[in-house]
């Protein structure tokens, strides 16, 4: 995830000034997202009134397409960039609020199934990416970064691992570019494959959460299919995110044992530092909803707040994706990432189809 990009742009300056700096970009996110929502509501109506055949395109795709159009034509002017980088912040707030739509029992049940699938996915993805990195002759630490990025959690996992294994910044940039480019491609390919295979919302949502690496793209890929698929994609991806600390810790141990990174001192502190706190927030809100702390109307209101937060996120996914910049990052890491992602997508699809049979989704 690109959260660290947003974090990194925050410099120790006057907080009020910092706040003012993000306002234009947040307004741009809101404008692009809302335009997507208006297009969803009106394009279909217009087409119907004129007897045109036009597919029903959801606001998620409109918002992403509008963002992509801006980013890849006129570009995002400097004044908006700090605010656009906050899209991950809205994503995390949206996920916490989404907790209101899950009863804790469902979270534990779905999360338990997801956890088993995530465990298999992580082991398989790391093993395969490591193998590919060796075949293509990539630097070992770059291979580690690509493996973590594709196995767990995209950009945030790469940045967390970079610090822990003392990898080069250049390697991290390569790995991040590969993961971002492939995440953007998944937005267009996953729904097509899902429809072609007639996957139901449950199976498709779990598959998106397992196979798409960046949380924003996973949520978007799920949301592009249906609201229910989006919910499950977020839950499955959140389960993956929860494991980030363990994977980074394992890599830190591995590189420290080879004398190429500092040894980890306090392991519990390390795990807590790497643990995504929004996962806890999600569970707390879910627990409160289960305990009837919120009325039905209030849960509806929280769900809508979550949707507004995701709207800003989806606009940000389009606005921060610049294909020209991503294509400059070199072919080899991208090739390894692409081959690995296709294999992981196929592998996780097989897992999901098997789970669908076993659990009767």
């Amino acid at each position: 995830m690109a959260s660290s990009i947003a974090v990194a742009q925050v410099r120790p300056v006057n907080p009020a000034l910092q706040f003012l700096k993000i306002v234009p970009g947040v307004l741009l996110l809101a404008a692009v997202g809302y335009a997507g929502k208006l297009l969803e509501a009106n394009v279909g109506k217009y087409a119907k009134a004129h007897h045109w055949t036009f597919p029903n395109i959801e606001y998620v795709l409109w918002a992403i397409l509008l963002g992509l159009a801006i980013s890849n034509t006129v570009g995002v002017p400097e004044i908006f960039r700090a605010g656009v980088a906050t899209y991950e912040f809205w994503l995390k707030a949206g996920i916490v609020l989404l907790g209101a739509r899950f009863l804790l029992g469902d979270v534990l049940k779905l999360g338990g199934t997801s956890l088993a699938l995530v465990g298999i996915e992580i082991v398989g993805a790391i093993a395969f990416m490591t193998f590919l990195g060796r075949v293509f002759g990539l630097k070992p630490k770059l291979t580690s970064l690509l493996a973590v990025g594709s196995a767990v959690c995209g950009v945030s996992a790469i940045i967390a691992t970079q610090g822990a294994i003392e990898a080069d910044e250049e390697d991290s940039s390569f790995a991040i570019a590969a993961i971002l480019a492939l995440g953007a491609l998944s937005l267009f390919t996953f729904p097509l494959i899902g429809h072609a295979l007639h996957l139901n919302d449950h199976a498709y949502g779990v598959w998106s959460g397992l196979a798409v690496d960046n949380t924003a793209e996973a949520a978007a890929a799920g949301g592009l299919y249906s609201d229910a698929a989006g919910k499950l994609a977020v839950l499955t991806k959140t389960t993956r995110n929860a494991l980030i600390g363990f994977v980074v810790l394992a890599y830190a141990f591995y590189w420290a044992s080879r004398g190429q990174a500092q040894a980890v001192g306090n392991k519990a502190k390390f795990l807590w530092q790497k643990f995504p706190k929004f996962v806890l927030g999600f569970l707390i809100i879910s627990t409160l909803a289960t305990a009837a702390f919120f009325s039905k109307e209030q849960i509806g209101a929280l769900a809508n707040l979550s949707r507004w937060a995701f709207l800003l996120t989806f606009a940000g996914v389009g606005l921060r994706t610049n294909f020209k910049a991503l294509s400059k990052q070199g072919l080899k890491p991208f090739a390894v990432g692409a081959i690995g992602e296709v294999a992981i997508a196929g592998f996780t699809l097989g897992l999901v189809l098997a789970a669908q049979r076993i659990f009767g989704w």
Partner: protein
Amino acid sequence: MSEQRQALAPVKQRGFSIDAWAVLLAFVLAALVRAGVFKHIPW
């Protein structure tokens, strides 16, 4: 990509992380909904 390179420079965090701020905002919004300040959120 220069933005990403900048991003990868070690950042010493002061106070809350972005994660924690996002959780805090969500909790505040949930509390306001629970207290009836926001009765209906349209979509």
